[in-house]
């Protein structure tokens, strides 16, 4: 890749998805774009980038942007968060919404570990008296395909997932493990670009979007946070990483990373 290629990719990721990509990190760009270039039949990443630039084809453009979107994930990252959702937040919401439906959304689900962690925790201890709907989205179509299949390598199922949950929720394959249909069928999937208008998705009681904000440019980060805030149903919670902030929203004492709309927080306090 030339320095010009790297700058072009960085600008493309910023324009299309608000992502911050450091053009100086040549190894990262090569590592992420190399497999895409090979898959698309190009002899090198440079050739692939030239094609992206010259052909102006949406499919190729998104192949590049999606490859550069954040991919780091694991089962039950910060397990405290799942305990707080299942043991504290959902019962509170369920009481208010008795007989109704609670909608939960993992907004950047990657290859599925985050949303399946939520689904497994719900399968084990769902609150009574409400119907739960679980949605998952990601920018990257290929990651969504992997997520929907629910197949994970031996390495992947050992990062954050307890052995008890492994034997309870997975079946062994010749090379890896597949999540039970019972858990997989709890989740509905959709490709979503979080910097775009999200109003078509409806409203949610819990939106999980953890450890993603650092990958956005500053203005995109503010836009994504505002977009996610607008998807919250009254009394709903946006859950960010424990070190992440939503300055325009109200934090929850004792629940780092949990934010509600300021109006909801005022109503709850009144």
């Amino acid at each position: 890749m030339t320095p010009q290629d790297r700058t072009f990719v960085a600008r493309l990721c910023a324009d299309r998805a608000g992502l911050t990509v450091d053009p100086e990190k040549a190894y990262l760009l090569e590592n992420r774009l190399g497999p895409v270039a090979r898959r698309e039949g190009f002899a090198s990443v440079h050739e692939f980038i030239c094609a992206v630039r010259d052909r102006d084809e949406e499919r190729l453009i998104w192949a590049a942007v999606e490859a550069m979107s954040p991919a780091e994930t694991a089962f039950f990252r910060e397990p405290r968060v799942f305990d707080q959702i299942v043991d504290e937040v959902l019962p509170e919401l369920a009481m208010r919404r008795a007989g109704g439906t609670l909608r939960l959304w993992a907004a950047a689900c990657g290859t599925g570990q985050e949303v399946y962690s939520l689904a497994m925790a719900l399968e084990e201890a769902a609150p009574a008296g409400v119907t739960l709907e679980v949605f998952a989205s990601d920018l990257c179509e290929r990651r969504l395909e992997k997520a929907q299949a629910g197949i994970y390598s031996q390495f992947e199922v050992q990062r954050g997932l307890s052995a008890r949950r492994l034997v309870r929720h997975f079946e062994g394959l010749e090379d890896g493990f597949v999540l039970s249909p019972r858990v997989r069928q709890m989740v509905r999937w959709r490709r979503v670009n979080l910097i775009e208008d999200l109003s078509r998705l409806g409203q949610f009681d819990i939106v999980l979007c953890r450890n993603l904000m650092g990958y956005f440019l500053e203005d995109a980060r503010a836009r994504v946070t505002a977009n996610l805030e607008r998807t919250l149903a009254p009394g709903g919670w946006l859950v960010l990483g424990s070190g992440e902030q939503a300055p325009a929203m109200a934090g929850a004492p004792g629940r780092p990373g949990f934010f509600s709309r300021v109006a909801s927080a005022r109503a709850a306090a009144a």
Partner: protein
Amino acid sequence: MVKDTADPKLCLVVDDSRVVRKVARRILEDLGFEVAEAGDGAEALAWARTAMPDAILLDWNMPVMNGLEFLRRLRQEPGGTDPRVIFCSVENDLDRIREALDEGASEYIMKPFDGDIVASKLALAGVL
């Protein structure tokens, strides 16, 4: 994290492979554990009778006394229910993993492993 505490926790690595013990020792020491080694279940049992460890990384298939037999005997010893036992084996069949958990294992690592997996499993077992 265990690291930097004045009184490091003791982890006993039980494996008949010297290479596995060496790799595990390096990972565990980086995580702040004091590490002891045993080459089979009988040797591990003798160790536990001398100084009961906080955690045990336990291979399944070993000469003299295998991991499962060691675990059963350990749990009969005074203080033998205290250590968190994390099986660490090439066995990746879910029925075998279930069997280990039913016998009182806290966690299970499928080989090969790396530092992230060991740290994740120690945390799940409550010793990190």
